[in-house]
């Protein structure tokens, strides 16, 4: 066995931390704030990464990437998520929209969209969930109907992150009625400024601009906007979800905050109760556990032997960790008097982490869905 990720990964981490220190203001907590400067931070940071060839590090060189190893890609995900994802909305384009174009796009789509993503010039949103299709995603009702040499899209999407900022929507619609509800679905690329597209932000406890409703009223698209084969969009969605389910390195942010806690508290650390310290230590173990489970999934993916159950077990572990670590961190904050700049920054990050972690077991496939997937795997059902 060998758990050393090697000198290249260590060097990459050092580089990324240096760039974050230089280009991301202390206290940055994502682009989802009332301050437009936060969105600008993310966009500018993406340009810095793009100029250095580090935005799409995982991509093949022919598309502007570096062909980085899976462990280098992992280090990028960990460092970025730990630092409140300073790529902002770009991670979506980089992590899965670009790769999906590489696999399923027409040559024209590849030439148009992939360089845009590689340069950090475009923000995407994902039009999947609907009011009556959440965990049961294949039950979507938004439809595209033939109209002359194109299609008319009508329907509503909900919980759409980045919709207020996005230039394009990666939209799942029903194009026909198949034998099963997973049949007859297709993906269209829809410009967000197309006539008939309306975005309504949903004010929520996570902060403004985080989730939105998107309405499609007779929106016109053409054959050229279709991504992948007509009526077989479900296969593309499954690829997207598999990218998402291992994509977010939640354990990295959890670990960074837990490691920061004793330093931020200083002398007050010793005064914490044994009970709180014991829970803190337990969460650090669970961070390690989740990270190792993620690494196992990645290794199995490389061998081509990963099962939906392996990914689901990791997802369950990491999302529970996110919430439990947030609870412990909040207790640490509550038990202390935090006054210095660093302490107040720590407190703000913990508060934000706690609020955001509430959604961890819901987003990108709820824990219940993960348990169903895992149970199927365990019982051969």
């Amino acid at each position, binding site marked *: *066995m*060998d*758990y*050393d*990720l*090697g000198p290249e990964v260590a060097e990459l*981490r050092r580089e990324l*931390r240096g760039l974050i220190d230089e280009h991301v203001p202390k206290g940055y907590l994502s682009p989802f704030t009332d301050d437009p400067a936060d969105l600008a931070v993310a966009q500018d940071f993406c340009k810095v990464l793009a100029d250095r060839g580090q935005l799409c590090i995982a991509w093949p060189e022919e598309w502007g990437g570096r062909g980085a190893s899976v*462990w280098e890609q992992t280090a990028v995900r*960990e460092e970025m998520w*730990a630092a409140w994802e300073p790529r902002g909305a770009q991670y979506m384009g980089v992590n899965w929209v670009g790769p999906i174009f590489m696999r399923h796009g027409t040559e024209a789509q590849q030439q148009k969209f992939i360089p845009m993503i590689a340069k950090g010039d475009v923000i995407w949103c994902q039009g999947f969930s609907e009011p009556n299709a959440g965990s049961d995603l294949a039950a979507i009702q938004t439809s595209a109907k033939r109209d002359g040499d194109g299609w008319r899209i009508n329907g509503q999407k909900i919980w759409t992150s980045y919709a207020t900022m996005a230039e394009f929507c990666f939209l799942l619609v029903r194009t026909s009625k198949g034998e099963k509800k997973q049949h007859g679905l297709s993906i269209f690329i829809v410009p967000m400024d197309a006539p008939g597209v309306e975005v309504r932000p949903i004010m929520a406890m996570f902060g403004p601009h985080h989730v939105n409703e998107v309405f499609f009223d007779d929106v016109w698209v053409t054959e050229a906007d279709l991504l992948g084969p007509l009526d077989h969009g479900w296969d593309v969605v499954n690829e997207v979800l598999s990218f998402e389910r291992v994509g977010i390195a939640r354990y*990295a942010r959890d*670990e*960074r905050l*837990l*490691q*920061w*806690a*004793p*330093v931020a508290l200083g002398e007050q*650390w*010793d005064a914490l109760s*044994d009970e709180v*310290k*014991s829970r803190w*230590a*337990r969460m*650090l*173990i*669970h*961070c*390690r*556990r*989740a*990270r*190792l*489970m993620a*690494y*196992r999934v990645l*290794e199995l993916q490389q061998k081509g032997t990963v099962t939906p*159950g*392996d990914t*689901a*077990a*990791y997802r*369950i*572990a990491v999302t529970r960790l996110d919430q439990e670590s947030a609870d412990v961190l909040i207790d640490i904050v509550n038990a202390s008097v935090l006054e210095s700049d660093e302490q107040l920054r720590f407190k703000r990050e913990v508060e934000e982490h706690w609020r955001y972690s509430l959604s961890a077991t819901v987003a990108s496939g709820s824990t219940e869905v*993960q*348990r*169903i997937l*895992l*149970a199927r795997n*365990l*019982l*051969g*059902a």
Partner: protein
Amino acid sequence: MQIDLTEEALEYEATVRRALEAAGGDELAPRAAADPEGRAALVEPVLAGLGVWDLDPTGSVDELEAAAAVCRAAGWWGVAYPVAERLAGRIVVDDRKPQAVVGGIDRTWEAVTLDGRRFTATARPLAGLVRKHAYVADLDLTAVDGSADPVLALVLPTFTLLGMVERAMAMTRQYVNEREQFGKPIGRFQGVQFQLTDAEVERAGFEALVKYTLWSFEAQQPEALQDALALRVAAIEAADLVFRISHQLFGAIGFCDETPISWVSRASVPLRRLPFGLADARSQLVASLGDRGLTGIFSDLFA
């Protein structure tokens, strides 16, 4: 990055498991309970025939991983013999109340405390029913000069415990697919499925941590003892949950001598409680960490 035991170690594990099956498999534990003094004879020669006692886990990485694999195979059958303790070459003890699961085995053991103090240890005779003592004997300790590393002696028994946890999961998965109530296998009920998935998450996490910790020892990481303590916390938590869920899903039959789950479950108890249980393991870890977190991606970020 190589996150599994070597192919050779895994093959060796399969061989040991088959040999133990041929020697009695699930019958080994009941036979040992019927004749505690003769329990060594059920296992020692089988493992000797496969060269297990010739392994030197500190001699090479291959032998270390082979030893870990043997311990897991022994755990799978819940064998009533201190395989891991023999392979580690020593037993970790709490010298305030020295005990180990070595009762009825005629050997002198090397014992070590968590802080590295060395002793020779002999087991006092067992008294009463196996059901009550589970081969856990009080030890007489005699101090020896010098110090010794307790890490391997903490980690190898944890591989045995992992084998037991994996067996419990395998048996429970099979049982819920076969046992019918209300006209269908109980595994079709979501309430049963979700308990099983909780157990599987613990099992998978335990497996990930035990392998990492073996590597930490193997690679002579300076924080290997801390890693072993962290593993011990996670291992006990995982085993507690998996066995509780297994018993729940087996129902009353799972407590009966006729079911292997009952034997594997009881064999796991001393491994969860010795040399110290969950509360002590947590306290030891917290004391060891102080104000520095467990080694991880960001442990040097705030140093």
